[in-house]
């Protein structure tokens, strides 16, 4: 038999035309295997087409649907109703937009602006090493790649930056810092000095207070703080 739940979503809403903010509650009868994006869609379909919420791929690979549920930043596409009830021990959920960028409407924030942080970390190879003598690909041993391949899985959903106690002040944030770390550890990058300058800049790795919230909230389960620690230690 299919398990169904009566849940209430209290959504923080914002109207850019009137600049008003308010809380609005929606009660939904939802099957346990639905994801929060499905529930939000159902609210649009059945109750309120004006409620705006972000998403794109809806399977945790693009990082567009970050929201805060009962205080925890997460991806709405990954949260199944039955898991939410179990995890938060309630049938009532408070949904807020991420706090990392200005709100456009309701749960949609301007992640385009948040991305400026990642751009500052220069996620490309600034100066790649010279080509392999055979003219083909550079050789990287699997063991070397393994040191940083977890960090390359980051999808810049900004859940970590939202949870981070420092990233609301001057810190570029865990994901942006990790993007720089990837290239510091990448044997193909030769501009290590420039990368170190980015890493040890006023807005970078030492603004991290090692609370490790990033690692605990990361939807991809990347141990973000491990890579930040390597940066602080200068081991890469």
């Amino acid at each position, binding site marked *: 038999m*299919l398990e169904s739940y009566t849940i209430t979503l209290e959504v923080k809403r914002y109207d*850019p*035309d009137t600049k008003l903010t308010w809380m609005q509650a929606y009660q939904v009868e939802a*099957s346990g*295997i639905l*994801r929060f994006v499905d529930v939000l869609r159902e609210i*649009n*379909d*059945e109750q*309120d*087409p*004006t*409620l*705006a*919420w*972000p*998403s*794109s*791929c*809806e*399977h*945790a*690979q*693009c*990082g*567009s649907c970050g929201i805060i549920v009962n205080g925890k930043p997460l991806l709405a596409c*990954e949260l*199944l109703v039955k898991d939410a009830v179990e995890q938060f021990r309630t049938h009532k959920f408070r949904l807020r937009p991420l706090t990392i960028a200005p709100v*456009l*409407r309701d749960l*949609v924030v*301007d*992640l*385009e602006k948040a*991305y400026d942080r990642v*751009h500052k970390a*220069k*996620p*490309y*190879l600034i100066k*790649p090493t010279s*080509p392999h003598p055979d*003219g*083909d*690909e*550079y*050789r*990287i*041993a*699997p063991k070397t*790649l393994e040191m940083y*391949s977890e960090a*390359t*899985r980051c*999808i*810049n959903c900004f859940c970590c930056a939202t949870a981070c106690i420092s990233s609301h002040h001057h810190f570029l944030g865990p994901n942006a810092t990790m993007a720089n770390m990837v*290239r510091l550890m*990448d044997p*193909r990058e030769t501009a290590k000095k420039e990368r170190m300058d980015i890493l040890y800049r006023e807005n970078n790795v030492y603004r991290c207070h090692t609370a490790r919230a990033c690692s605990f909230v990361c939807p991809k*389960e990347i141990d973000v703080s491990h890579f930040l620690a390597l940066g602080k230690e200068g081991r890469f």
Partner: protein
Amino acid sequence: MGEALTIDSTLRCDVLVIGAGGVGLRAATQIGEHRPGTRIIALTKAFSPQKSHTTTAQGGMAAVDPKDPVDRPIFHMFDTWKGSDCSADQNVVKKVCDMGWEEMVWLERHGMHFSRTEEGRIAKRPFGGHMLNFGETKAFRACYEADRTGKGIMDTVWAECLKYGVNFIGQCIATEILFKDGHCIGTIIFRFPEGKFLAILAKATIIATGGKTKMYLVSSNCRGNTGDGLALALNAGLPVMDLEAVQFHPTGMVGPGILASEALRGEGAILRNKDEEPFMERYAPTAKDLAPRDLISRAIIQEIREGRGLFHEGHNAHHVWLDLRHLPKEVHEKKIQEVCSFFKRFVGVDPEKDLCPVTPTAHYQMGGIPTNEFGEVQGDTQGIVPGLFACGEVAAASLHGLNRLGTNSLLELITMGRVTGERVIEYLKDAKEPEALSPGAPHMVFDQFSTYLHAQGKEKYAQIRDTLRNLMMEKVGIFRTEKPLQEAIEELRELKERATHIPLAATSLRANQDLWQLWELNNLITVSMVIAQGALARKESRGAHFREDYPKRSDEFNYHTLVYMPQFNEVSFGKRPIDMSIFEAKGEHFELFDYIEREY
């Protein structure tokens, strides 16, 4: 909503890329790298190019290293030709297969994190329909980054674009292509956050908006894959080609249809029916679970129809099993880590211990805006549209014909992206700066949006969307026949009409999700009509297009379907010949590039 809709401001650039996914940005990087100082604007519906649908591609990219001791580019060309059921264009097949390895090295040298062999080289895995010695045995040809190859490509080309100062404009839709004296001069865009229209004038415009399977109930595509680029071209009076060829990926996860990569079968996963029989052995004795996608999708539906499928109560869907239990732990943890986590999170099964429920999911469009082998858009069979280019999934050059092999799409992105970029550089040599638009000139998009904003009636967006998705799945899906196709066309006419009676709950232009989705829904209905019309007209079965009333391929249809639809349902057809240049060159093994039998 009383105020008149107007263009708020105008931006200028040399190159405008509509759609900042893998192919659009590969074209942009080519231009940035080889023509420094070019002013490039790249548009995306998403917040950032990194959120494009390319990023969800999992398995790999086929490419043959010319120094490979066993594999050869000609095997790859043959597989692509055979895989397409003899409907790909051989000039494009040859070009792309010959360039493949060079592009792998390009990606690697620009920072992509490919998985590696023990010797530190780019690792390769087998994939469906890719074989050695013209179909003898599976080939290790797909270069990959674990099971996030698309993300690897996307991260690489996006980051490179940052280096070259490409100007990204996110959260916008391109709503109308602009022409002057037959030249494309840019587009009008609509920005989500401010709700404003902008004109972008460009010397060259590249349409790279990707795919569109959101008109199907079960789809692996992201929320925004709604056929916008195709609708844009159709509304401009341009043709689209082979849209009847819709690829259903055999292994979508039961429920939302999330993709479970072919890489799983490349690594050894096996499809099983309710008796746990590995049924593909009956349908494709040589290739088995690595047969092309069209064959496997039909085999799965066949199993279900004959009572050997299963039923998932929670998701109310029929399915078969994908068995990954026998794969080594190392493979689960490193090579297919993302997909395994999707099964755990979204379906609640552990692929190491449990059988995984899968069902075919609408995945890819083989057809698109017709282009030549350089990415130049063809207005008709005679000539190209100056200043307008298209590449990637939205375009049909055509590398795939009526069926695409797994891993050839990512390959197409980086090869055709580069080729198109090169062509644009050539074009820019003599291209002139477009003149300013005359103020107050009428624009189709304002009529469209006025209709949405002033609509009266009792229709509901969600009902029409769901009706469309069910209708397309049932009548224009994997198996097709004449009568249901005719019914579908009638029903699509009704839906189009009904969609004009959906009143918006709010008529603000600013960050109005409801308005945005209504525009998308109209695009979906438009493109669905062309799919259905093409499917009705092609009275044969070829590749992914299967007609139960005409189950065989027929030489009568050895051509590409062109459809024009400048007004909804004002449909006219054309034909484009299939390029047979490998066959006609009479080189080594040319006879295999004739209209051959297709068995696996």
